């Protein structure tokens, strides 16, 4: 793991935590219009790609598990 400064890691974690909360949790009402799952996945993957240290922590771990 490359040593990322704690402050940067904290910022990235905060964004990741936001995404996990607003797109994956929260109360759900049956609205007339609900954001398509495909749109949400797209944002999720895009954000993870941006998050250098935390994103790769999770992907790196999965890659290691597949090795």
């Amino acid at each position, binding site marked *: 793991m490359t040593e990322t400064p704690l402050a940067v890691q904290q910022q990235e974690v905060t964004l990741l*935590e936001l995404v996990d*909360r607003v797109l*994956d949790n929260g109360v*759900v009402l049956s*609205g007339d*219009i*609900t*954001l398509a799952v495909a749109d949400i996945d797209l944002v999720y993957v895009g954000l993870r790609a941006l998050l250098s240290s935390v994103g790769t922590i999770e992907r790196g*771990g999965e890659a*290691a598990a597949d090795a």
Partner: protein
Amino acid sequence: MPEPALHLYAITDRPEAELPDVAGLDDARLCAVRHDGLAAVCSWATGVEATPPALWRHEAVAETLMADRSVLPARFGIAFTDEAGLRAELVRREDALAGSLRRVAGCVELGLRVLAEPQDEPSDEPLGDQTGRAYLTIRLEARRRAERLAAEVHGPLARLAEAARERVLLTERLPLSAAYLVRRERVDAFRSEVERLAAERPDLRLLCTGPWPPYSFAATDEGAA
């Protein structure tokens, strides 16, 4: 051209309370649909997409509301074509929503991610030297380490919380991710405990986020409607 729709931010108690002067998506004014002891806070928006700025705006509204009322923050992307549709949902789900609001009253959500240096990482070994059994042993040890860590780190924090949701060993580098529903007056004690645990385990990074509106505890009990 997409039609404008009522984008939902949160369900709150205190329907009589004035809405805060914070802009919603598209910089629109907030409005509320009220029923009995509930208010659904929303605003008109067109063609909403889940971009980071939009997600932060959604979060900002829920956070602002949380300052002086109980909130069930809504999942991003739920919208109604008119107020009548939203009111019908409020009426239909009234009891469950009121019950969830009571459960989160006076509380905020705190998030924790524990980052660890992987030990005996399988990918560090030349692939040919690893038998399936050795690989499984390593995975099993990683699992046990994560469970011990969950007991050491998650246990004391869960005792300071009203409720907790944890996921153990998402990956070796992220052995624990958890959300805690914490009474406001205990937030400082919770943070101190995180610092104490971090000092005790210099091999880990404990990243605590929040206070968040209680997204992880906003689900209602009545099952999928």
